[in-house]
């Protein structure tokens, strides 16, 4: 059996942020935000399913950490083709930064026995840290390939990935087991399957608590998080003013002069 683990997160849908997205005290008003499957994690799921399609006997397990409601993305992943999944859900996990999160996840992955490949999105759209994947790799002492764009080849012992870099791509081969983080340039995830959707609707998602992952409680949640959030600001990017220019040489000259004067050009 070739075991693939996909790390996923349920995040606020930042495409649909309304006026009530922030509380008066500057914290995020989670109740007012619709949630979605973190987009790059969906891309990672697709890459994992493609690995599964190519291997004879592969199994995809999706792991997430969050409130019980995060079960929604486990069901979603399973309706798209994942075989199993669970939510790390416990008040003791709450308030975790990337260090504590990656610790909890790596402990959970250790309980799964033989794991050949771990995949996750590069980063989540709420935190944008891109730290959890690499930290999990470090904690599990696995090679890591970041910025994966395309699965080039896979066999029982190695994976070859095309990475998206600033000015091109790089083909990288790693020994398995390894961890891969996937960027938004990778293939879109397949749609759910109707029959799987219906079966998932009748199924309960497993909730795993802190006692089941053989963890040091001091390293979990807020206690295990050196990061302290001081304040979150609601930054609204908007045009302060706009000028309509007439399509004449004179108007363009004026614009150039203004931009030079204001040291923009």
């Amino acid at each position: 059996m070739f075991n693939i683990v996909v790390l996923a997160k349920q995040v606020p849908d930042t495409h649909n942020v309304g006026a009530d997205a922030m509380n008066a005290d500057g914290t995020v008003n989670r109740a007012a935000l619709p949630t979605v499957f973190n987009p790059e994690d969906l891309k990672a799921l697709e890459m994992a399913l493609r690995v599964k399609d190519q291997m004879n006997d592969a199994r995809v397990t999706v792991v997430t950490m969050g409130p019980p409601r995060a079960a929604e993305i486990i069901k979603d992943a399973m309706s798209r083709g994942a075989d199993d999944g669970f939510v790390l859900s416990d008040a003791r996990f709450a308030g975790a930064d990337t260090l504590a999160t990656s610790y909890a996840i790596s402990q959970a992955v250790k309980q799964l026995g033989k794991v050949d490949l771990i995949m996750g999105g590069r980063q989540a759209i709420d935190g944008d840290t891109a730290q959890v994947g690499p930290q999990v790799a470090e904690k599990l002492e696995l090679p890591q390939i970041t910025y994966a764009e395309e699965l080039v080849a896979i066999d029982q012992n190695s994976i070859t990935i095309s990475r998206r870099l600033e000015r091109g791509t790089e083909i990288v081969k790693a020994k398995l087991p390894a961890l891969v983080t996937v960027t938004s340039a990778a293939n879109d995830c397949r749609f759910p399957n109707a029959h799987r959707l219906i079966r998932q609707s009748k199924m309960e998602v497993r909730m795993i608590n802190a006692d089941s992952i053989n963890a040091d409680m001091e390293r979990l949640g807020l206690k295990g998080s050196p990061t302290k959030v001081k304040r979150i600001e609601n930054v609204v990017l908007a045009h302060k003013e706009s000028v309509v220019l007439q399509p004449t040489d004179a108007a363009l000259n004026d614009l150039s002069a203004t931009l030079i004067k204001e040291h923009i050009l």
Partner: protein
Amino acid sequence: MNFYLDNENLSFYLHHPDMEQVVSVKEKNFAEAGKHPEAPADTNEAIQQYDTIMRLLGDIAGDVIAPNAESVDHEGPQLVDGRIEYARGTRQNLDALVQSGLYGMTLERQYNGLNFPRVAAVMAAEIIARADVGFATIWGLQDCADTIQQFANEELKNKYLPRIYQGATCSMDLTEPDAGSDLQSVRLKATWDEASNCWRLNGVKRFITNGDADLHLVLARSEEGTNDGRGLSYFVFDKADGGMKVRRIENKMGIKGSPTAELQFTNAPCQIVGERRLGLIKYVMSLMNGARLGVGAQSIGLCECACREAEAYAASREQFGHTIDKFVAVQDLLRQMRARTNGARSLMYETARYVDLAVSSKPASRVADILTPLVKFNASEFANRCAYDCIQVHGGSGFMKEYACERLYRDARILSIYEGTSQLQVVAAMKGIASGAYLKQIEAYDAKVSASEGLTDDMCRMQSLLRKATDGYRRLYELVSSEGTTSERFEHSTRALTEVLSNIIMAYLLLLDAIRATDEQRVRFLDSADYFVCESIGDVNKHLAIYEN
């Protein structure tokens, strides 16, 4: 974009009170609950399943099929070495739907179907047609599988039905060069081949939608020496068995992504569906009623698309310092488009519910039979009107190829022609007109309105006007049938009668929708009902004036 979630009318009809009965009939009182991992245990769970699957379909329609519509229209299918290759976008659409396990949604669970009722199937067709009517024809032809499920023997069912789920495409091969509306003249020959223990097909079929499909249902003459409908039988032909070649693809005005082909059958092996001689008179008629409802769904999908294109354009196009949706003349056009779309939709889901109930109820079956031609007739005519008005709202820009409305205009044109022209739908309605079955149905709707609680003054006003329109219809009927219902005078007036009673029925249905709607929805349903109330009063008085003088 999700084409299910952004149209709350769809969920409204999925949650119609009569759905409880529809679900119960379809699920045979939940006999499979607990025995099959997908079977629902009660009505709520079943409707939840329909809702879940429509969301999935709405995603695929909005994110895959609609964005492909334009390129598919340009590219079209190609004929290569006697085989049809779909446009690239068509292939993508099919792959997404097959991979999502959506094919065969009305088939029983033992054949990998979802065991969904007609209401859900029609909704799926509407959603897909809004994205691309041409593709909706290819999708809709999976209804052929229902014919196999209903009439074929176990061996054929087990052989062919699971393949639908895997994405086998279907076609319904009826038309021939000399047999269009008049299917009794079909000549393609079926002969029994004793040595191979199968039937063999020889001849030509023309204008076959999705002609190079994997599975074909072929109407053929099995009884030598006959020349009427009773000599025809129905056959299932598997393309993989060979013996069929595509001679040409038609160059059409619209639905260009859907390949329309001329087929040559040469000793093509096939198997008979059901009994000999019942091909046309039983099986095709059954399939045809389903197909007519399907064209209704295509038409309403197109209407919805046309409404949205027109509304979006009118809200953004500025003239005289205002967006043009501020002008009454444009508002009137948009309102009429919406009213027609809402009226046809309400009628279609009402009919689909009766089709579902017809399985276990003779009276329901009779109502389904009389309402089906009204759906096909009104929806397809409205689709043409909506596409026309959509261009009108766009003004000169609508006449250019840049906007989707020109494609809609071309695509709409076939809807009032195929699967029985509008004229044939009027002929089909004659029986219900002459027997008084439509009137009985209208009276039942009136009683339902009267029995409803919380009628507003506006609703009572509409009901009273509809009663007047119905009285007018009765007088009109007496006038035109004075020389009998087989007279030329009666025949000449059947289109007028069909239009009047359609408007009355749609007005009543929208009124009933308004009664059970939320406050916000109610305004829209009442506005559409009001349109049909005015249409029916105006129409009936016009025709009375003509026939009374």
